[in-house]
C-alpha cells in the first residue's frame, strides 16, 4: 500500500515537470497546465486514501469551500488585476505552509507530548518563518497593487535596523522553541515575528517595483512548501516547491535586469523618491502636437509600424481599439508589430496577456532583444501608455535615475507618435527627453478615444 502511494507521488512529480516543460512552447502551454493539474489530482487522491474515513467529511467540506472560492476568483478576476491575484495566492500558499508545519509541530509537541528531532524541528521553524513572511508580505503587495494602500514607499528611521533585530529575534525564538518544546510561547513568538517582518520588508518598496516583489514572494511560497516537505518527509512537496522556488527566482532576476537594478537595491526600498527631486531641475521640453487626422495619414503612409504598449494602455482600456488599428493597417499591407519591454505591465509577461485578451495574435508580440535593431528601419512607432521604457536618457544621460536601464529604441524610428493624456512623468518620476525630439509627435488625450478617432479616420480613407 505504502509503495503504491509513493509511486503515485512520483507520477505526480513527473507530471509537474512535464507540465512546466510544455510551457516552453506557446502552442503546448495549455496542455502543459492541464497535465500539471492532473499531477495535482493524482497527488491529492494518493493522500486521501491514507486518511481515516471519519475525517473525510471535514476534508470534503474544506475542499468544497476552497474550490468554490478559487473558482469564483479565477472567473471574476480581470486580466489587469492578475498581479493582485497572484500576490494574494502567494500569500495563501505561504499561510497554508505555515499552518501545515505548525499543525504538525503542535500535534507532536503539545498534544502528544513527543520530542521533535533537530532536523524536523528546524524544517518546521523555517517553514513557519518563510510561510508567515510570505503571507503578510503578499497581503501588503496585494493592497499596494490594488490601491487600497498607497503605492508610495513607506520609510521610517532605523527601518533596516528594526528588520535586522527582528530577524535575529526569529532565530533566537526558533532555537529556544526547539530546546523547550513543551512551552508553546516561543513558537507562537516565531509566528508573530515572521508576520510582522513580512509587513516591514514590503512597505518600503514602491509600486513600480511590485513586479520584482511578487516574483520574489512567488519564489518564497515555493520554498515554504519545500520546507514543509522536509517536515513531513514528503518528496512531492520538495520537488514542486523547488520548481516554484526556481521559477520565482528566475523571474525576479529577469525583472531586476530589465530595470537595471540589483535585487538588494529593490529590497532596501525607497526608489522613486530621490528620483523625483533630481527630475524637476531638467530643462523644459518643447513638444510638437499632432491631431487625429494627421496621425491617421501617417499610419496610412507607413510601410511598417511598431506599437510600444505600456500599462497606461490597459488603464485606458485601449487594447481593443489598437487591435482595430492593426486590422486597418494590415488591410493596407502595412507590417504591424508590438514591441514588448520586459517590465511593460505590472508583472512579468503581463502585457502579453492583456494583448492576447484583445485577440491580438501572439506572433505579433516581439521581445525587446529581437525587435530593438528594427526600430531604425521602421517608419512609424506608436507609443501608447509607456514612458520610461522609451526614454533615451537611459542610454545617454548618466545623471538620470534610469541610466543604464535597457530601453526600446523607439527614438530611432523615422516618426514617433506618443499617445498621452498629459505631459505627466512616468513611474520613475522623470521627464522623457524623447518627447522633445524632432521626430516625436504628441497625440494628447485619452488613448481609447483618440485611437478610436484615428481608426474611424482611416476607415474613411
Amino acid at each position, binding site marked *: 500500500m505504502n509503495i503504491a502511494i509513493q509511486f503515485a507521488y512520483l507520477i505526480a512529480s513527473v507530471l509537474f*515537470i512535464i507540465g*512546466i516543460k510544455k*510551457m*516552453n512552447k*506557446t502552442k503546448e*502551454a495549455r496542455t502543459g*497546465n*492541464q497535465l500539471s*493539474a492532473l499531477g*495535482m489530482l493524482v*497527488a491529492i487522491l494518493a*493522500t486521501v486514501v*491514507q486518511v481515516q474515513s471519519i475525517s473525510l467529511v471535514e476534508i470534503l467540506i*474544506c475542499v468544497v*469551500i*476552497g*474550490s468554490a472560492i*478559487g*473558482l469564483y*476568483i*479565477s472567473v471574476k478576476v480581470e486580466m489587469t488585476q492578475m498581479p493582485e491575484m*497572484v500576490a494574494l*495566492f*502567494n500569500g*495563501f*500558499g505561504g*499561510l*497554508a*505552509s505555515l*499552518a*501545515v508545519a*505548525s*499543525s504538525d509541530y*503542535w500535534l507532536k509537541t503539545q*498534544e502528544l507530548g513527543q520530542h521533535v528531532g533537530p*532536523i*524536523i524541528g528546524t524544517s518546521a521553524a523555517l517553514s513557519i518563518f518563510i510561510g508567515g513572511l510570505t503571507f503578510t508580505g503578499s497581503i501588503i503587495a496585494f493592497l499596494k497593487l490594488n490601491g487600497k494602500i498607497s503605492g508610495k514607499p513607506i520609510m521610517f528611521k532605523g527601518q533596516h535596523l528594526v528588520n535586522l533585530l527582528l530577524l535575529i529575534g526569529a532565530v533566537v525564538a526558533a532555537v529556544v522553541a526547539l530546546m523547550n518544546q513543551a512551552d508553546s510561547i516561543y513558537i507562537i513568538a516565531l509566528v508573530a515575528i515572521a508576520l510582522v517582518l513580512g509587513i516591514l520588508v514590503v512597505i518600503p518598496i514602491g509600486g513600480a517595483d511590485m513586479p520584482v516583489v511578487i516574483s520574489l514572494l*512567488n519564489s518564497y*511560497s*515555493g520554498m*515554504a*512548501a*519545500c520546507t*514543509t*516537505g522536509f517536515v513531513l518527509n514528503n*518528496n512531492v*512537496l*520538495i*520537488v*514542486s516547491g*523547488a*520548481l516554484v522556488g*526556481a521559477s*520565482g527566482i*528566475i523571474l525576479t532576476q529577469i525583472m531586476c535586469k530589465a530595470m537595471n537594478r540589483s535585487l538588494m537595491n529593490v529590497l532596501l526600498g525607497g526608489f522613486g523618491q530621490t528620483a523625483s527631486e533630481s527630475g524637476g531641475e531638467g530643462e523644459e521640453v518643447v513638444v510638437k502636437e499632432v491631431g487625429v487626422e494627421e496621425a491617421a495619414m501617417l499610419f496610412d503612409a507607413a510601410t511598417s509600424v511598431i506599437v510600444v504598449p505600456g500599462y497606461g494602455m490597459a488603464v485606458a482600456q485601449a487594447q481593443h481599439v489598437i487591435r482595430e488599428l492593426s486590422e486597418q493597417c494590415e488591410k493596407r499591407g502595412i507590417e504591424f508589430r508590438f514591441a514588448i519591454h*520586459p517590465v511593460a505591465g505590472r508583472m*512579468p*509577461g503581463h502585457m*502579453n496577456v492583456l494583448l492576447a485578451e484583445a485577440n491580438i495574435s501572439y*506572433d505579433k508580440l516581439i521581445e525587446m532583444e529581437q525587435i530593438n535593431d528594427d526600430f531604425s528601419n521602421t517608419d512609424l512607432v506608436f507609443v501608447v501608455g509607456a514612458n520610461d521604457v522609451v526614454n533615451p536618457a537611459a542610454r545617454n544621460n548618466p545623471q538620470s535615475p534610469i541610466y543604464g536601464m535597457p530601453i526600446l529604441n523607439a527614438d530611432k524610428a523615422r516618426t514617433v507618435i506618443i499617445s498621452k493624456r498629459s505631459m505627466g512623468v512616468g513611474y520613475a518620476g522623470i521627464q522623457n527627453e524623447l518627447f522633445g525630439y524632432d521626430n516625436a509627435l504628441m497625440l494628447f488625450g485619452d488613448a481609447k478615444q483618440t485611437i478610436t478617432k484615428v481608426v474611424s479616420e482611416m476607415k474613411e480613407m
Partner: protein
Amino acid sequence: MSLESLIILLYVLVLASYLGFELISKVPPTLHTPLMSGSNAISGITIVGAILACNELGYGTVSKWLGMLALILATINVVGGYAVTDRMLKMFKKKK
C-alpha cells in the same frame, strides 16, 4: 528523522531545483504571467500536507483547526491557480 533520510531529501531538493532552473529559463517571456499563476497552483501542493493534518484527533485540537485552515487555503490556490492559468492560455491564439 535520520541523517540518511535527510540526505536523500536534500538530493531531491538539489536535483529538482537544478531541473527547475533549466526548464523555466526556457519559458518564453510571453508566457511569464501564466507561468507564475501556474506555479502558484503547483505551490498549492501543500494540500497534501493539509489533508494529512486534517486527519488528526478530534475537533478540540489546535492541530486539526490549523489543518483545516491550510486545506481551504491550499485548495483555493490549486483550483483558482489552474483555472485562471487555463483561462489565460486559452486566449493565446495565432492568426492563420
